[in-house]
């Protein structure tokens, strides 16, 4: 649905305060809104953060690329609904999350189950942690491959909370707004999700050492 409120040049203005004018389809000069240019740069600067979250919410690279492109296209279209001064990362991640949910519905995935969880000190103890253990050496035994596998295998409702808080750097409240769930649910899913993650890491890492 084209809405010729503003037209955009394909080149960015070199200095703040200046912006190009273009002739719109109806022949009337329409200036581009400078606030839109500010928004564009702010949004594009967050591409790494959005990508990291998308990579962990989707099963493969291509799906993550599609999701990020779709999210940015929607963000640029609806940029006026973003309120300057609020957390843009959270705003973009909400769009990303909603699209991911839509895609998941299209595929009609079965509701995902949570794996087995253990208590919070389980991984530490399984790796041989004791009062004289060198914590840094224990941490070094965890390698990226199994971490990514464990995260990928985490049921989606738990994975998305872990990803938004631990990778997206959102607060509990911001994650609750993105997911449209109560803060208490964010906390319980986060804590349980991390425990499942640590259980999976313990099983993998301890097996490897045995």
């Amino acid at each position, binding site marked *: *649905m*084209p*809405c*010729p*409120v*503003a*037209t*955009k040049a*394909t080149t960015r203005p070199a200095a703040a305060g200046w912006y190009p004018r273009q002739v719109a389809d109806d022949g009337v000069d329409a200036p581009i809104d400078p606030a839109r240019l500010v928004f*564009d740069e702010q*949004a*594009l600067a967050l*591409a*790494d953060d*959005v*990508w*990291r979250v998308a*990579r*962990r919410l989707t099963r493969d690279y291509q799906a993550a*690329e599609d999701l*990020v*492109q779709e999210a*940015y*296209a929607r963000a*640029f*279209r*609806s940029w*006026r*609904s973003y309120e300057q001064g609020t957390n843009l990362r959270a705003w973009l991640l909400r769009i990303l999350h909603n699209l991911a949910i839509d895609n998941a519905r299209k595929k009609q995935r079965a509701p995902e189950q949570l794996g087995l969880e253990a*208590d*919070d*000190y389980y*991984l*530490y*103890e399984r790796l041989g*942690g*004791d*009062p004289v*253990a060198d*914590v*840094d050496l*224990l*941490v070094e035994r*965890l390698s*990226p*491959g199994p*971490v*990514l596998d464990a*995260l990928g295998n985490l049921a989606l409702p738990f994975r998305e909370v872990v990803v938004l*808080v*631990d*990778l997206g750097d959102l607060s*509990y409240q911001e994650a609750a707004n993105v997911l449209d769930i109560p803060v208490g649910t964010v*906390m319980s899913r*986060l*804590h349980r999700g*991390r425990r499942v*993650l*640590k259980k999976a*890491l313990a099983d993998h890492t301890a097996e490897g050492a045995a």
Partner: protein
Amino acid sequence: MSTQARPAPCAHAERSMQSYVDRVLSVDEVEVVERHLAVCPTCAKCYRFEAGVRNVVRQACDEPCPDALRAQLRRICDDCDCDEIS
């Protein structure tokens, strides 16, 4: 070992660990936890280990946006002339 099998201060420290590492405890709660960590090397190590695990997860996922996708996002941005009235 289950939470119930730990001495009460250790069980309390374990319950508080995630909130502590996430920095969402109140000043008073932080004080209670830190008093315990100062006298309990086991819990202190578990806390350090937890922070280490978080770092490992972050590092494992630290993958920059591919250049081709970044360029594509710029094109999407430049091509988007319309405002969606929401």
